[in-house]
């Protein structure tokens, strides 16, 4: 690898930048709604600057070299922000891949050199840019995962509403899996609401829980025990036939807990406990 090739690239920086942007703009997938051309130019120029500054004869074959740290940083920052803005992987990928095309196009190939050297040079540049692409993808995925994790947190928070169905009766529909973190939220909300509303009966509805394994059962038992400590009765409703069979086979003992098949049944039981009576009004026949 002759250093004049790198020098040549550094000299041609503006041309490379122009070519690079042309390729990016030409791609049909460019999202002008998410990023203006000026912004694109700015980002491209920043990355190209850093790359051309970092690259030299020695480190071109060693992509792990600390010289590329800044390049990696810029690239990681770019792809994370793109992941958050909602760019597709293709759009993010093209950003780096098109740089390869622009670089190779502007490579000063000495006509007197033999084919082997030229091919080697091209290989080296290829490898370098491929590595940059990998960095881009890794951070892009990481950015996406962050989005997912944030949504998971949000779902946990909004998915445990405590409803006052009647004076003294609370209902808590649980939808999704009950894991330890979720149980904590459910329990806290429920106990807090029992204090605030002065309720004496809480109905935990598990119609929306896909499977009851021993961990979920353990969490349910704990929640019921905590509710009882607060002086309220806890009813578990929404036990589907297949869940009932599974719980029995698994050997979980729920016999100390009042369980009902449907929320309606649980409510009826709660009314009975509170000595309330729900009746259809009999229309008096006028005489």
């Amino acid at each position, binding site marked *: 690898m002759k250093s004049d090739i790198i020098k040549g690239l550094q000299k041609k920086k503006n041309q490379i930048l122009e070519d690079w942007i042309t390729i990016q703009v030409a791609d049909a997938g460019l999202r002008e709604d998410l990023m203006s051309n000026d912004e694109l130019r700015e980002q491209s120029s920043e990355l190209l600057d850093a790359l051309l500054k970092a690259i030299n004869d020695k480190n071109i074959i060693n992509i792990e070299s600390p010289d590329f740290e800044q390049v990696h940083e810029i690239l990681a920052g770019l792809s994370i922000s793109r992941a958050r803005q909602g760019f597709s992987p293709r759009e993010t990928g093209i950003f780096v891949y098109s740089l390869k095309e622009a670089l190779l196009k502007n490579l000063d190939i000495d006509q007197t050199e033999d084919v082997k050297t030229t091919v080697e040079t091209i290989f080296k540049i290829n490898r370098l840019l491929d590595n940059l692409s990998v960095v881009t993808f890794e951070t892009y995925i990481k950015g996406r995962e962050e989005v997912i994790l944030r949504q998971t947190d949000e779902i946990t928070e909004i998915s445990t509403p405590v409803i006052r169905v009647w004076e003294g009766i609370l209902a808590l529909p649980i939808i999704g899996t009950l894991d330890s973190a979720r149980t904590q939220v459910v329990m806290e909300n429920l106990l807090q609401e029992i204090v605030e509303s002065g309720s004496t009966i809480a109905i935990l509805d598990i119609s929306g829980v896909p499977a009851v394994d021993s*961990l979920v059962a353990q969490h349910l038992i704990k929640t019921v025990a905590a509710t009882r400590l607060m002086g309220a009765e806890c009813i578990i409703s929404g036990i589907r036939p297949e869940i009932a*069979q599974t719980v029995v086979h*698994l050997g979980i003992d729920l016999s100390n807990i009042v369980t009902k098949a449907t929320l309606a049944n649980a409510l009826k039981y709660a009314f009975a406990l509170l000595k309330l009576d729900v009746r259809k009004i009999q229309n008096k026949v006028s005489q």
Partner: protein
Amino acid sequence: MMKMNQKLMKIVLNKDSMRIEKEQDVVPFRNRVKENAVKIGMGVVNQTKLITAASELVRNMLKYAGGGLVLIEAITEGRDSGIRLTFQDKGPGIKDISLAMKDGFSSGKSLGIGLPGTRRLVNEFDIKSIFGEGTTVSIIKWKNG
């Protein structure tokens, strides 16, 4: 004359594997098991039993070994079809399997029904563990079992 005493062979029709590393993997894993069970036409009750068993074992794997690999296979044996799940981990292993298979025993702070309960939920249950090297649990739930 040919005798029909050939032992029935289990034939793997479909293979799928999934790496479990964190608690967030449990739900997607369960959905994957469910998809496979639905594909072979398993009924709702058996589906739920299988998923619950899978959920027990995968939680054990996370809790004691910090994760591992699960193989999901659709298999047939004669006219029966079913799902086989194989859980492999490189965790601490189980010191005394017969004790771990007892109801009410737990080295952690759980109900202690995970392993024995799982065995009751499935048709075939096989556990191998080398103390200090890891554990492999394999379960089969037949479609009509």
